[in-house]
């Protein structure tokens, strides 16, 4: 991995110094590589450069002793844990390193950020070493968790800042909830917006919204649902009439947003409920994983409709979202069983149908959903149990996804502690990122289409790979 990326880097600091300091970083010396400007570099490349500069600085200060780790050791290898190499970590951890980096640099990468960084580096090198964790390089691209207090750049609406915080803290999570929340806040943003003189709403509002969107994205990566909704919104904005009075145009846009929420989410959910509840029969055992708002509605609706079935809620750490579903089901007097993912094998033979939600669905029928879903679906497939995904068509994402490494997020590491042994206090058992420990909790995984029997959409029950045949999913209005 590192060998691929190294020839592209052209560090600004003299390569000799770097060689003396961090052989693992610049081996071979990047002599032949063309010089790239900071803007041309990718994020990863810029990060690399910063790290080297910081390392160089640290080397000057401490006069860098011999490296205990071999020069060929992977950069993230924790063997050489001296303060002389404070910046060799991958980026995949939610450590304060990133918090400082991101506050200084923001998301778009300022051209002068490396100089800022290197000044700051020396000062904070020591504390970095203490609290930093070493990410696995393969997961380094997983979205970072931004610190809660990061500074809003530009003209960001207060409601957006608030929403960003809620996203970052997982106060609002779930594809539908986030999409609805985003659209509702955008309605306020649009209403509070006034077109500056010598500009038209249809052109300027877009740039105004882009700032808000990039703020939200910096808080937590955009979900597919939000992306689809925003694309639709932008289309509506660019299509709005220039001659329309401003307030009318804004009202029209808000109306469009309301319609989108109603048609693509609320009504769609109702149709899915009606369709999916017909797949639940008396005496069935329905298994579901984590919590999906649609699945919860389907189960409650089916129970209210008089079907008598029982539910197995499978859950897993760290988020334990199934608890919320469980409490909703139990308060509706549905017989439930609650278990964690490792126990799935013991109950799978009892199950008659698996009902799961989705974050997004892709052209090839692969379903991106809460981590662990793929395991449940594959297990069910192995036991010839139908796996039904409840998914609105606006969750469709064009493109083919083959694995869950290329794009993923990290779950908040709130609850990942063990309650054993019991003679130690729970506080001492909480696992945290340490120097030689990286907690990796990917938020999503990818369920391959072959382990999905059917997808329930508002356009009917379809096989997973037929989602692209639905015009509605492709954004074409009927």
């Amino acid at each position: 991995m590192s060998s691929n990326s190294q020839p592209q880097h052209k560090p600004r600091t003299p390569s000799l110094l770097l060689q003396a300091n961090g052989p693992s970083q610049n081996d071979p010396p990047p002599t032949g590589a063309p010089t790239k400007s900071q803007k041309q570099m990718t994020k990863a490349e810029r990060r690399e450069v910063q790290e080297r500069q910081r390392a160089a600085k640290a080397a000057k200060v401490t006069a860098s002793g011999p490296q205990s780790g071999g020069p060929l050791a992977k950069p993230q290898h924790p063997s050489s844990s001296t303060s002389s190499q404070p910046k060799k970590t991958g980026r995949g951890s939610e450590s304060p390193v990133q918090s400082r980096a991101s506050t200084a640099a923001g998301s778009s990468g300022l051209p002068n950020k490396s100089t800022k960084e290197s000044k700051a580096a020396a000062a904070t090198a020591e504390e970095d070493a203490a609290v930093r964790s070493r990410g696995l390089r393969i997961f380094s691209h997983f979205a970072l968790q931004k610190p809660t207090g990061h500074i809003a750049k530009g003209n960001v609406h207060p409601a957006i800042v608030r929403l960003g915080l809620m996203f970052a803290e997982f106060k609002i999570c779930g594809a539908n909830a986030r999409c609805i929340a985003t659209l509702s806040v955008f309605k306020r943003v649009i209403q509070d917006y006034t077109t500056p003189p010598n500009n038209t709403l249809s052109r300027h509002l877009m740039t105004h919204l882009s700032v808000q969107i990039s703020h939200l994205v910096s808080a937590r990566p955009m979900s597919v649902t939000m992306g689809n909704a925003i694309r639709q919104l932008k289309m509506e904005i660019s299509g709005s009439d220039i001659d329309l009075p401003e307030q009318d145009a804004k009202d029209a846009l808000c109306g469009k947003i309301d319609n989108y929420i109603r048609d693509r989410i609320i009504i769609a959910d109702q149709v899915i409920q009606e369709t999916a509840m017909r797949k639940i029969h008396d005496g069935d055992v329905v298994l579901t994983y984590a919590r999906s708002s649609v699945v919860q509605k389907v189960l409650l609706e089916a129970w209210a409709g008089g079907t008598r079935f029982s539910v197995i809620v499978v859950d897993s750490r760290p988020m334990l979202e199934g608890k919320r579903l469980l409490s909703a089901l139990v308060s509706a007097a549905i017989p439930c069983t609650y278990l964690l993912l490792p126990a799935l094998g013991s109950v799978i033979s009892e199950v008659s149908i698996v009902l799961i939600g989705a974050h997004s669905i892709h052209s090839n029928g692969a379903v991106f959903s809460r981590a662990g879903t793929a395991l449940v679906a594959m297990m069910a497939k192995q036991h010839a149990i139908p796996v039904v995904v409840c998914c609105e068509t606006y969750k469709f994402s064009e493109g083919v996804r083959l694995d869950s490494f290329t794009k993923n997020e990290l779950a908040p590491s709130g609850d990942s502690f063990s309650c054993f042994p019991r003679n130690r206090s729970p506080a001492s058992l909480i696992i945290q990122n340490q120097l030689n420990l990286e907690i990796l909790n990917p938020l999503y995984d990818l369920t391959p289409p072959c382990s999905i029997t059917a997808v329930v959409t508002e356009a009917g029950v379809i096989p997973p790979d037929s989602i692209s045949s639905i015009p509605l999913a492709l954004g074409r209005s009927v």
Partner: protein
Amino acid sequence: MTAIYSNSTPILPRSDVPNADPDASQHSFDVYEVYQQALADEEISPPLAAILSLTELVTRSDAGTMFELVQALNDGAESLKKRVPNPIGLTAGCELFIGFVTLFPHGSANFSELKREIVHQGKSYTSQVINFRSKIAELTLGFIKDDSVILTHSYSRVVIRALLHAHTRKRISVYVTEARPRGLGLKTYEILTAAGIPCTVVLDSAVAYVMNKVDFVLVGSEAVVESGGLINAVGSSQMAIIAKAENKPFYALAESYKFHRLFPLSQYDLPTHHSGILSFVHPTNRPATEQIKPSQHDVNVQNRPLASLAQTPISGQPSTASPQRTMTSEQMGKNPDVDYTTPDLISLVFSDVGVLTPGGVSQYLVGMFAGL
């Protein structure tokens, strides 16, 4: 083609008679009767019969608006479904016709003209359907090699048509399953033998035995569903599984009016499945009846000389004296008529819209229905 016209002509004059009193006609008109009459024709399959009877319903209907008409059609379809034990094929036909009526362009000046146009279209559609089968037969021919050995299941009009067509051009021999309990495989056997095609009836339980000898499996269908799977006479699914296990192609033939907007998740998710199927006998009466019955059989079996036991299967003609173990109608009632073959077991589906993979079928169906 003539069959259709001869079938539809007796319906037409009757439709004119009660028009004087529309209310009376609404009461006396029984869509189910028309359906049964249509089915009496050898060439008419349930979806077609449904289309015919709904067309008839349109002629009889005194609906003055589109809404009323569609309502009447839905009611008619509903009453048909209730009275037929296996509504799958019928539903496919009703769905197609009602969808057609709903989307029918409102070009006509007045409504009765529109109705006449709908009836005309419905009739001309059913008359074209026989061409569908010839087209499928022609498509299938390309996949049949000379000297092929084909395994088929039960009785299907379109399979018969395809086999007879293939027989005119190539040498084929056919294994057909008996297809208990209705024994429709014997009907296939008679037709094919009469046409001079070498044909052998095999037991339903001998499918695995015969599979290695056949080149491919050819079955008809009751309905082709949205998953790309197939609903057909019970036994098709196991045939497909065995064919898959031996890597033999499994081809299904289906006219496009059998494409049905249904997505069964499993065998038990079919509309034909009810709690009676596969139910167990209540254990309370087991000591009383069930132990006596087998013991009677056992006595008989023991009384018989061993020689006769050995001979019966060979001769294939069980002697009348020996007790034939057959299922009672009650036992039969616990068995399904149709089963669901999952798309992963099907190689290709031949239909009048072309030769489709199961995935292609599902995309065709999703595009047809979900695009609305």
